[in-house]
């Protein structure tokens, strides 16, 4: 059975500026990012016949298609679970194009999380696991829910705040190289980290991602067509979604092993369909709404053994020149938090050789979506 391995390629990426507040609407930002991605690919809007986005995306396909003048759409899909759906948008397009359900696909995310409301403040919105078991007790925000897992992780494996700082610092250092990043001109020191205010102990301010307005998009076509495009194709080598048995979302406290999250499930499928292994990954873009998600994901995607994710971050391992440079645009912690879509585009930039923190000769890149929620991941190659 033919799969999706190397059958499709990203040939266009686009983004708006990132800021705490942008004056334009989410809809306008979505249109700008999509048009920028199509322009990058050299493909006319009228040729687009496939779309994919997140269920939390508030600009729907009808609005996007009529605003930017897309053609007749034959495939459109939305993926749930917030930032867990980021890579799945590309995965769905890759599957659709490989199966002949579409020829030119666009994935996007536009969000005014910087100037707009914080989702957790709306207590009428239901959660994947009924909120009656958590919210009345003051477990209100994603930071509280993940903080609970982080505390347990630190207890079981000896992870420390210094390990979480290593994650925050690597992302900030890359943002300091990226003029488009919110934190471009704002270096982070260990003292700043250790003395910053708490959000939900054990997580401090710098363990939490940014709150950003912005939008991004990418364009996917078949590998055959990609050879005729004006950009260097970045192939979707392998893709996976992951919803583990007996998983409960960010409040994953009720199964046998709460610290083995969706990353493990996505990783098994991802590597099963890949021609290379974690050791062959040149650079990774790992979803970082909170710093502890990176050690957990390093374990889940097989870069180290269970419980070794924190120790993996030592000795500059996540920096350029380290064992596994991560989040080379600055990530959600220091470039922009747009539900992880900037991680996808940064992966493409690395494999084109155009990142502002380029890993020399990078030919393979892992991109992941949110760990701690039903998730997804991509292996990209040049």
């Amino acid at each position, binding site marked *: 059975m033919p799969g999706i391995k190397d059958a499709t390629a990203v040939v266009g990426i686009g983004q708006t500026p990132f800021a705490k507040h942008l004056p334009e609407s989410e809809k306008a930002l979505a249109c700008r990012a999509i048009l920028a991605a199509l322009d990058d690919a050299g493909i006319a809007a009228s040729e687009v016949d496939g779309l994919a986005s997140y269920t939390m995306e508030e600009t729907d396909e009808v609005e996007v298609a009529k605003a930017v003048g897309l053609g007749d759409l034959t495939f459109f899909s939305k993926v749930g679970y917030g930032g867990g759906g980021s890579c799945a948008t590309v995965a769905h397009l890759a599957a659709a194009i490989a199966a002949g359900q579409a020829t030119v696909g666009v994935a996007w995310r536009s969000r005014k999380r910087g100037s707009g409301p914080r989702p957790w403040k709306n207590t009428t919105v239901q959660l994947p696991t009924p909120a009656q078991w958590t919210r009345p007790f003051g477990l*209100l925000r994603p930071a509280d829910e993940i903080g609970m897992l982080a505390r347990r992780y630190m*207890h079981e494996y000896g992870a420390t705040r210094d390990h979480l700082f290593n994650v925050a610092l690597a992302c900030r250092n890359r943002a300091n190289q990226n003029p488009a990043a919110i934190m471009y001109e704002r270096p982070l020191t260990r003292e700043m980290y250790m003395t910053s205010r708490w959000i939900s102990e054990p997580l401090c301010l710098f363990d939490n991602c940014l709150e950003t307005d912005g939008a991004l998009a990418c364009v996917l076509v078949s590998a055959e067509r990609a050879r005729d495009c004006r950009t260097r194709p970045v192939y979707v080598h392998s893709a996976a979604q992951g919803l583990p048995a007996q998983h409960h979302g960010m409040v994953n406290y009720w199964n046998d092993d709460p610290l083995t999250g969706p990353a493990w499930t996505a990783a098994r499928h991802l590597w099963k369909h890949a021609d290379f292994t974690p050791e062959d990954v040149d650079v990774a873009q790992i979803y970082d709404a909170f710093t502890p998600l990176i050690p957990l994901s390093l374990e889940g995607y097989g870069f180290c053994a269970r419980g070794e994710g924190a120790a993996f971050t030592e000795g500059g391992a996540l920096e350029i020149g380290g064992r596994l440079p991560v989040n080379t645009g600055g990530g959600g912690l220091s470039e922009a938090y747009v539900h992880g879509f900037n991680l996808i585009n940064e992966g493409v930039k690395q494999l084109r050789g155009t990142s502002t923190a380029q890993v020399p000769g990078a030919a393979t890149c892992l991109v992941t979506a949110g760990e701690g929620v039903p998730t997804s991941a991509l292996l990209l190659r040049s």
Partner: protein
Amino acid sequence: MSDSLLSPVPDDDGAPFWQYAAHGELRVQACADCGELRFPPRPCCPHCHSFASEWRRMSGRGRVWSYVVPHPPLLPAYAEQAPYNAIVVELADAPRIRLVGNLVTAPDAPLNSVPAQRLRIGARVQAVFTEVDGVSVPRWVLERP
């Protein structure tokens, strides 16, 4: 109601938990056929697919599995008590069953009544009940304060 603590909003599966809580009983859903406990409650047993369930009484003893200490920004009623604790307790009767709650000095004490530095994973705790807006909810006190 924005300045009071949130009351649980029960669904069909969870309603019995709160009905038993109103009588000061901590009960967990179990399969009436194969006997497996499950939490959170759900319509059928993931092990044997039976839709018959019962609610088994727990001793209320447990251990702190993890905890956080939230600081603002928070909803107003919680911000007033911040920093407070939220804990996950694994039940002595069924260690895979874990409940989110708060460690307090007495059933009606505020969420910040136990100093944060007294929290530790593994501490033995006991369920007690208090009323929030007329709804009985579990709280946890240290077995040895």
